[in-house]
């Protein structure tokens, strides 16, 4: 059972990186004073928040009886994905505007908004973005949730899901090397900040608001 869960995670972990990469890579690369410990802490916080959201989703689905069919309703999944994009876009945007806007318009790097400094704090962003990305229900995740719910007793189901999640984690190991890269390529930090603003706006407008209101 444990082996199956880990293997499921390992074989499908690329999906997780596909959703988390666009949020995590520019966010981490653009961080000020990024040391190995802080970087690992931010990645861990993000992944922890994502796991919490998965637990919440699993509990809500189970409570609503949505797991009985063993198939996710595509419309519901799409709606959740839209909210995932809106929330992760907003959290990246607040982080950009409050802490690390790519270009300062004043002498002292002035374009950052002091009002957003707290909500756009790196640690708060890691938590919110992790929770938001957790709203993406991809097929492997659905499989894991269903398997964990129907696995027998609650504890083994919980373990199944945790080990599935552990199976996906090796794909995030390269992110621990980001401080090494940014140290040797300082220009990357400003480029990553530009990317972060663009990703946040794209998530918010093109993948969030437009599908929410017009599709």
């Amino acid at each position, binding site marked *: 059972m444990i082996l199956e869960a880990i293997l499921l995670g390992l074989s499908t972990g690329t999906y997780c990186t596909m959703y988390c990469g666009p949020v995590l*890579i520019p966010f981490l690369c653009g961080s000020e004073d990024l040391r190995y410990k802080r970087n690992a802490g931010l990645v861990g916080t993000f992944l922890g928040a994502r796991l919490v959201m998965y637990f919440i989703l699993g509990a809500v689905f189970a409570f609503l009886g949505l797991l009985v069919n063993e198939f996710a309703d595509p419309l519901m999944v799409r709606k959740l994905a839209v909210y995932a994009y809106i929330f992760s876009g907003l959290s990246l945007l607040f982080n950009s505007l409050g802490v690390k806007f790519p*270009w300062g318009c004043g002498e002292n790097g002035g374009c950052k908004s002091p009002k957003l400094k707290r909500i756009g704090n790196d640690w708060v962003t890691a938590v919110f973005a992790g929770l938001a990305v957790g709203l993406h229900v991809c097929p492997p995740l659905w499989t894991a949730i269903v398997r964990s719910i129907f696995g027998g007793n609650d504890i083994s189901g919980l373990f199944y899901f945790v080990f599935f999640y552990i199976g996906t984690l090796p794909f995030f190991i390269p992110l621990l090397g980001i401080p090494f890269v940014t140290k040797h390529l300082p220009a990357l930090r400003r480029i990553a900040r*530009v990317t972060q603003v663009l990703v946040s706006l*794209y998530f918010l407008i093109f993948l969030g608001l437009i599908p929410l*209101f017009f599709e």
Partner: protein
Amino acid sequence: MISSLILCLMMGILIFFFVPLMSNFSISSVIYAVFLMYLYVRMTFSERKKPGSSAKYRSIFQITFAVGFCIAFIADLYASRGSMAITEGAMSSAEIPFCHIAIPQVLVPLLITKNIIFPARIAGHYASVASMLLIWLVCTIVLGRGWCSWVCFYGGWEEGFSKAGKKRRINLLPKNKEIREFSFGFFAFIVLASLCELACTYCEWFCPFKLVTEFSPIDSIPSLIGAVMFIGLFLGLVVVMPILTKRRTQCSALCPFGAFASLTDGISMFKMKIDTDKCKGCMKCAQVCPFGAIDIKTIQDKKGSPELTCAKCGECVRACPEKAISIGFRFDHKCGSSAQKSKTKFGRVIQELLEPAQLFRFAAFSFSVVMSSNFMTRAMNLIVRAIIK
């Protein structure tokens, strides 16, 4: 002189093979072959008199190619679909022609998912995508980002508009660094967004050249928003900004392929070099660079070569009054002029033939001939037919 004649002869053979012979000696192909030959001969011999003067003929070629490509492409679309709009049938049967700008968007998803996310003609086979990737790889090794200023069939639009205005109204030189950062940031965004969505984000929302190729039909609010973006970006970055700045603004700020080509340019054989001993710091090269690859700091810090985004167009060579800029082999640290001259005539001819500027021009123009022959012949056929009618 002899080396130039030899190169012209070789180019003549290449043009003969790829243009008239491939098109069964149709009138339009012969006209196009003569036009190409004229450009290459002028390019080669004018360069002997004044270094960098070939840039003018490169410019003429690229503008002609851009217009001809669009004529042929749009005519093809009308012939096969009856409109420029992408139909659902074309989309579902993966009948969208693959374009080089999509390459950086498909590579990462291809590595991870083993699928090509572009709905190109890949039903059952990957021929068109594979051939485009192969062309890109060969071109990168030989030309590097030189593709953008010699071969790219979209770049000619901006090239044309940037030459349209007489006076520069906006000077972007002090903002070069920021523009470069934006272009790489935008490139990273496009790669990440394409990976996240498993779709070509740039093609879906940001490509200004949809306006002169094909576009999604406007049948919903999102498609209307898309159309407004395409038109806005085309008018803004391909028409208005190049006129005002005399620069290729879309190429230097938005095109993901351009940024990608800049990053992979390090494996190409040729590189622009600035002789820091000759350079007097007049900044004329920086003012004329259409890609913003020469900053004030590049000259002040005596870096010896333009920045990463140099597309080897040769405009700086033409502008430099001190003849301090030249094209050289990337791994050759000696300047061309300092190389020892051969004592025999035969040796001098060989030396001239192997001169990096000559070789680069020959390679770049060969690519241009190969890439343009089919489209341009068809475009000229259409124009000739329209005139006769």
